[in-house]
């Protein structure tokens, strides 16, 4: 059976694919946002999976830093997107 | 010497530019330098001006020795007549402007010693003559003017292509160095067509009756005298006369000329307007000269003699025809009708070649070079002269008839001018050649014509020409053109070309 890193890596790639597909197909903005976040998680999984060398060896810290940065960036983008959506819908009723 | 030459050409231009052309006497004055040149400057004096018109050469040679005085005399005579005769200044001034322009063109053409200058003179003369035909502002251009213009432009263009190819094939433009021999038949044909229009060979003559009948008498005089001769000068200079190998063209020209001689007379007899009749007589006379040229082409060795004869014949014909027009105008509106009618009769006889007249000399000169195997041409020409006499008779009747129709206020008699011209013609002829012996051979054509004329008088009134439907002036070509128009073939071209000019064709100018 493949080791954990490969398993999670493949999962990450699949999640990224799912996210990408949903992001393109879905028309509703919030659903698209969710899809993009899922895609992000997928990519981060790939990164962290490659940094994992099994239970007894310390993992490579650089991908961890990258993913941390990635998460913060993702949340910033999500926040801005939601604010845009809110402004868009508020401006609707004028 | 050179100053005189340049003065002949620039005199008329100076008169125009200075605005003196409005004065009556400006026309004759302009011709004076030309007369002086003719008198003083010896035969082959040529000056080269290479900055003028791609290297122009001006000067005199044997041909211009004869042609210059004749033209100058004619221009002076017509100018004098016009000065006497001219109507309101408003109408005369433009006429005199174009008169002077045409004179410049004609003199340049005569004095030209190279192809380019000849063509320049030829086209200036051709175009400015339009002003002579169309001398009175009219809402739509009279048929005479537009027909004249169309034919002249066609003629000039044909001449242009002919001259270009001639200049190229002959290698240079100067007459002296012009090796006319190399010209191929197409070039000769082009030249023939271009100049043929000017001298009115049958088929190309449609504009002549209209033009002579229109405009003022002085204009018609100059047309029939100086301008027609221009065409002849062109033929004399450019046809490969002294070169062998052009026999077929010669035969064509001979046949065409002889046909013309009789064609002119035939249609002339049917006309009722005196000036139209004179036009047809010009057609026949010039065609006979062209026939002789054709003969010269067939027999190159005889060419020099023929050329000399033709030159004399042309001078005689020019002066007498010009005088006839002036006299006819004088008779029609002159103060002393009887005197001018007498002059008319005298001139007609001269033209018909009656004995002791320059006409007789010219005709005998033409016949002398004919060798025995071509004797038949001589007899044909004899018949032609009888026909001409008949035509002259017809002319006299028409003139008498036209006199009765109008009795305008009598103008000063210009008869004197006609006489002067007459005398000059004879003087020239007599000084050059011995007085011809009075031989039956020379007289019988005149007598035969007189007999025919009186016989014709006896015919019943019904068949007399007066009440016959008169064929239109331009006869065959005009008829053919109208038939085509009716068939819509060239209506498009015609409509655009003549949309503004054509009045209904029937009406023609005063007689």
């Amino acid at each position, binding site marked *: 059976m493949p080791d954990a890193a490969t398993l999670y*890596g493949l999962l990450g790639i699949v999640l*990224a694919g799912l*996210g*990408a597909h949903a*992001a*393109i197909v879905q028309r509703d*903005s919030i659903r*698209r*946002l969710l899809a*993009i976040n899922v*895609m*992000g998680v997928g*990519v981060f999984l*790939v*990164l962290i999976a*490659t940094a994992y060398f099994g239970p007894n060896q310390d993992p490579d810290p*650089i*991908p961890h830093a*990258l993913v941390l*940065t*990635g998460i913060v*960036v993702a949340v*910033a*983008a999500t926040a*801005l*997107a939601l604010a*845009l*959506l809110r*402004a*868009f819908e508020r*401006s*609707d009723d*004028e | 010497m050179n100053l005189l030459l340049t003065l002949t050409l620039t005199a008329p231009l100076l008169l125009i530019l200075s605005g003196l052309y409005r004065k009556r006497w400006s026309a004759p004055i302009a011709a004076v330098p030309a007369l002086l040149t003719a008198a003083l400057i010896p035969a082959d004096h040529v000056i080269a001006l290479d900055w003028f018109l791609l290297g122009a050469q001006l000067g005199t040679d044997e041909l211009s020795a004869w042609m210059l005085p004749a033209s100058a005399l004619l221009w002076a005579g017509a100018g004098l007549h016009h000065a006497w005769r001219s109507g309101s200044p408003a109408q005369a001034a433009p006429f005199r402007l174009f008169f002077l322009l045409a004179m410049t063109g004609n003199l340049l053409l005569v004095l030209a010693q190279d192809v380019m200058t000849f063509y320049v003179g030829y086209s200036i003369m051709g175009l400015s003559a339009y002003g002579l035909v169309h001398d009175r502002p009219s809402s739509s251009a009279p048929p005479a003017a537009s027909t004249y213009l169309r034919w002249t432009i066609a003629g000039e263009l044909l001449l242009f292509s002919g001259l270009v190819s001639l200049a190229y094939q002959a290698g240079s433009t100067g007459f002296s160095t012009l090796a006319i021999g190399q010209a191929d038949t197409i070039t000769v044909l082009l030249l023939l067509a271009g100049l043929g229009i000017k001298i009115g060979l049958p088929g190309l003559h449609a504009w002549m009756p209209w033009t002579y009948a229109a405009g003022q008498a002085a204009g018609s005089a100059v047309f029939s005298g100086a301008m027609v001769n221009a065409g002849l000068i062109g033929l004399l200079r450019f046809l490969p006369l002294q070169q062998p190998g052009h026999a077929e063209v010669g035969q064509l020209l001979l046949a065409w000329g002889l046909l013309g001689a009789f064609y002119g007379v035939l249609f002339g007899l049917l006309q009722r307007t005196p000036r139209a009749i004179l036009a047809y007589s010009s057609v026949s006379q010039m065609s006979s000269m062209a026939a002789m040229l054709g003969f010269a082409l067939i027999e190159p060795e005889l060419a020099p003699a023929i050329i000399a004869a033709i030159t004399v014949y042309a001078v005689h014909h020019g002066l007498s025809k010009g005088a006839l027009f002036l006299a006819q105008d004088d008779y029609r509106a002159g103060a002393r009708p009887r005197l001018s009618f007498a002059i008319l009769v005298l001139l007609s006889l001269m033209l018909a070649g009656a004995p002791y007249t320059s006409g007789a000399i010219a005709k005998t000169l033409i016949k002398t070079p004919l060798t025995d195997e071509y004797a038949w041409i001589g007899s044909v020409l004899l018949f032609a002269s009888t026909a001409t006499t008949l035509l002259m008779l017809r002319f006299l009747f028409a003139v008498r008839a036209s006199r009765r129709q109008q009795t305008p206020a009598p103008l000063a008699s210009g008869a004197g001018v006609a006489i002067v011209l007459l005398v000059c013609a004879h003087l020239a002829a007599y000084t050059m050649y011995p007085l011809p012996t009075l031989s039956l051979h020379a007289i019988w054509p005149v007598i035969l014509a007189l007999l025919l004329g009186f016989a014709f008088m006896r015919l019943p009134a019904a068949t007399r020409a007066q009440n016959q439907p008169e064929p239109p002036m331009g006869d065959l070509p005009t008829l053919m053109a109208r038939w085509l128009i009716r068939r819509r073939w060239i209506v498009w071209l015609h409509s655009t070309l003549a949309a503004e000019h054509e009045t209904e064709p029937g009406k023609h100018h005063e007689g």
Partner: protein
Amino acid sequence: MNESMSLTIILPLLGALLAAAWPRRGVFIGITAVLLSGLAVGWLWFSLLADGPSHQALGGWDPGLGIRLQVDALSILMLSMTALVALAVSVYASHYFTRRSQAERFWPLWLLMIAALNGLFLAGDLFNLYVTLELLSLSAVALTALGGKRAGIAAALRYLMIGLLGSMGYLAGVALLYSAFGTLDMQQVAAQTGDDPVSQAALIVMTAGLLLKSALFPLHFWLPPAHSNAPAPVSAGLSALVVKAGFYLVLRLWTEVFPDTLSTQGVTLVAVLGGGAILWGSWQALQAERLKLLAAYSTVAQLGYLFVALALFMSAPPGVARELLFGALVLMALTHAFAKSSLFLAIGVIQHRAGHDRIAELDGTAQRLPATTFAIALAGVALIGLPPSGAFLGKWRLLYSAISLDQWLLVVVIGIGSLLAAAYVFRVLGHAFGRSALSVQAIHSVHEEWPALLLALTATLLLGFGSAWIWPFLEHMA
């Protein structure tokens, strides 16, 4: 010498922070920050000329571990383009925003965008590029939505979504590269890439992401609404600079990071898409009723030219012709930046005066603003690629290489493209000659008009006649 590199990034960043902290002094801070960063770029010029291309490891750590900034001929040209265009747009923006609240919000975001651009052109590290790209996208989106109109916000939202999708694609590529080669530094990665599956997969995903962000033809649908609904200075910045970032990255990746993983099919695909962009962009620009929409579609078309040039460059055999084409490509990018920003600023002036930018009712305004119309004319000439402009030289060289590579279809497409461009430019200019009912006294509001005019003049005269130094400079510094 290395200080100047980081200064060009830090100065606008500090400016942005100051502007965010003291919004009322926004204009003053904004202008000074842009000026200072321009000076820093100038300083960078001298050091580049002095000791050639160089790089600086931030934080003192060697490249594998730390992040490296690098500068070479291409990046310095891009930086100077950004500095100049930003300066002109900032001057224009200082008078553009009537409402104080909008002005206060504009400056911090604007300076962040400039900082992101400078960071991007200097970045030497793949992940750092990702973060800079994100910063650029977010600030651009925020700026687009600044207009406050419903259409603007909707366009900004779609722009953000597409931007994120593109960035995720790019990040996936970076992740793969890191997992394979264990380093994020571009030069180190470049040393290890070949035509092995990882490099090819990474290249495909990263290029796809970047093409999405730089709006190449089929993926361009988000650009026109975004650029046409943003306020004038913002759309000038977007069209002239932000779109170039995506193209610059593709150029970097293709030429330096993945030189030999590129398959001919990939290059042909991009060439075809580029050709499609030229035709579709120009055609849509011709149909546009509003000036800003016209300018936006023209950006799509001009990008098509750049990508076609890039595709030709990649498929050209190594030699002098290839170097000349690279110079032409850079020149076309520069000219487009200046011309497009000048066009948008001029449109801003017209919209400011006439209250609308519908092309049909342009007569009166075009005649009463001679300087602006002249700027539009010059910018139009640069967009079409007619003589006085740099684009003419670029297009001449582009066609030259297309012909020598027997790409006849491309020649035809470029020809039709420039004709369509001429059509839509002169459709606008035609109104300058119409005889309008309004009184014809010309309004000269100099402070509003001269930035547009100056940019247009640089695009046509300066780059048209004075750009011979670019080629040797690129070669010498390569």
